[in-house]
């Protein structure tokens, strides 16, 4: 009974190896391809069915085409806009504005967020105002911006900034807040200086929250931009998707309106899927925050 009481080092090693093997399961991410299909196919089928139902309605009820265009009309409007080059120009203009505005918002929002997250008194005073600004529909800034900047691109950028900056700031703040206090303490115990603590511990730990803020900031940028473009069409403001939407409305061209909505939706989904999605998934997976599988 006493014989193996003191496990030799080797003994311990083999025991630990056995336990480690039992406690870690390496489930291979097999079936990725299948997951892709099983997550992409159903919505595609649903959309196809939806379009079929729509077409059926058009054929059976034969409604006025200016009130209910057929899918083919919408497709026609889309190809027409493409052929005239208007579509490309609108997408490029809007994307350029949206991305540039978003980048400016990041450049402005990040230091503000850091300042607010780390300096208590400033945060107490300014934090609620920033949260309040998030409640304000950024479209409300459009009329003021028009008066200040006229019908120019500056108006669009101003509205984007007012929409995106509060999100980015709040994202960074909540990211820093969610850093487990344990990690800060470990950093301190390991002998990190204030600067090392910030760069080696707090910032990387706050990344998921910050990124969520960026994602939301982008959504707000895009929303605000569309609103601004719709409202401020005219003047020297460039031709974006919102302008196109407004113009197709002016021409009572519902097929064109729906085509533009489809493009706006498509771009939103594309940026989410092709840009933010992979980065976020990689970051979360690297931290084990992403449940494997799942519908989202």
């Amino acid at each position, binding site marked *: 009974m006493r014989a193996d009481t003191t496990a030799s080092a080797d003994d311990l090693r083999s025991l630990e190896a056995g336990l480690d093997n039992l406690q870690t399961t390496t489930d291979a991410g097999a079936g990725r391809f299948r997951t892709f299909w099983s997550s992409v196919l159903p919505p595609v089928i649903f959309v196809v069915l939806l379009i079929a139902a729509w077409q059926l309605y058009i054929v059976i009820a034969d409604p006025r085409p200016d009130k209910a265009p057929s899918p083919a009309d919408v497709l026609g409007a889309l190809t027409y806009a493409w052929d005239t080059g208007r579509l490309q120009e609108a997408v490029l203009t809007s994307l350029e504005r949206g991305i540039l505005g978003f980048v400016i918002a990041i450049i402005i929002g990040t230091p503000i967020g850091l300042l607010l997250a780390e300096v208590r008194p400033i945060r107490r005073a300014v934090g609620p105002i920033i949260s309040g600004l998030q409640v304000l529909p950024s479209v409300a800034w459009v009329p003021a911006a028009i008066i200040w900047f006229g019908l120019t691109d500056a108006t669009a950028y101003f509205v984007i900034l007012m929409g995106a900056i509060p999100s980015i700031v709040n994202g960074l703040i909540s990211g820093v807040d969610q850093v487990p206090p344990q990690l800060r303490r470990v950093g301190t115990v390991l002998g990190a200086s204030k600067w090392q603590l910030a760069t080696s511990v707090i910032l990387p730990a706050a990344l998921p929250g910050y990124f969520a803020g960026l994602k939301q900031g982008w959504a707000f940028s895009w929303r605000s931009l569309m609103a601004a473009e719709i409202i401020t069409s005219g003047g*020297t403001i*460039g031709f974006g998707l919102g302008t196109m939407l407004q113009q197709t409305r002016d021409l009572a061209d519902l097929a064109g309106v729906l085509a533009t909505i489809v493009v706006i939706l498509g771009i939103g989904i594309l940026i989410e899927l092709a840009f933010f999605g992979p980065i976020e998934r990689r970051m979360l997976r690297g931290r084990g925050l992403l449940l494997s599988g799942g519908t989202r």
Partner: protein
Amino acid sequence: ASSTAEATDQGPAEELRLGYFANVTHAPALVGLQEGLLQDALGDTKLSTEVFNAGPAAIEALSAGAIDATYIGPNPSINTFIQSRGESARIVAGAATGGAALVVRDGITSARDLEGKTLATPQLGNTQDVALRGWLKAQGFQTDTSGGGDVTITPTENAQTFQLFKDGQLDGAWLPEPWVSRLVVDAGAKVLVDEADEWPDGEFPTTVLLVRKEFLDQHPETVSKLLAGHEASVKWIADNAGTAASVINAQIAADTGKPLADAVIARALEHVTYSVDPHADTFSTLVENGVAAGTQKEGSIEGLFDLRLLNAQLATSGGTKISAAGLGEE
């Protein structure tokens, strides 16, 4: 297209909802309201009105069934007719002709000077927008609807255009009255092109009376009465040249809260002619111009006019029959 079966005559309507702009080119509506001529003609049918700032909104209201008839420019009328394949509305009369011009800032004296400049129009695809695009094309300029080309065309709301022109952000604009006069009188603009010079006889439609097709089918009697009131208004303006300006201005003030300056309205009225003739013969040209400008889908406007009621009206009052130029019923 045939599913909405010919609706039958349901007698006079209880209410007629009429749309118009608080604009000099819509003077028959303004006078008709101010002097009570429209309500007098409609009799028991209640008249309610709605003021719009721009053609698309009026068309949308008409399409949504929120109004039954509206004073409006010819191009939005063409637009809705083509988009709906003839199911939305009919032009039953003309209202005004003339009263649109290209005004520019000092220093621009010829078409050549416009290269690289920025010009405004009230709305993409509206009557003046199409006119400007057509005219520029005739002058050899390239334009497109997304603001590119040799001359930038930027559809901008009229009030905004006035402001931007004063601020020096626009070089000119093709506008209807009273905005031409406002820019000339209040902002020092010069008329470069009077649209009247671009048409044979100098006659081109600026405002027509458009009626929802369903309403026309169901209540021809009411539309008839409306036409009577409309004709009376047009006549009243011709007969009261001295007081017309103040009556029109009174209604504008009532609708927008601000009257026009006397000089502005006086100048505006000089350039607009009021007539019940919609000048149907010019519409084919309008469509061609619209298609060429890229603001108009190609399509037939055959059937756009329904002048039977107007002609019946004119027959009793001794006027001459007006032609639909083969684009509808006479």
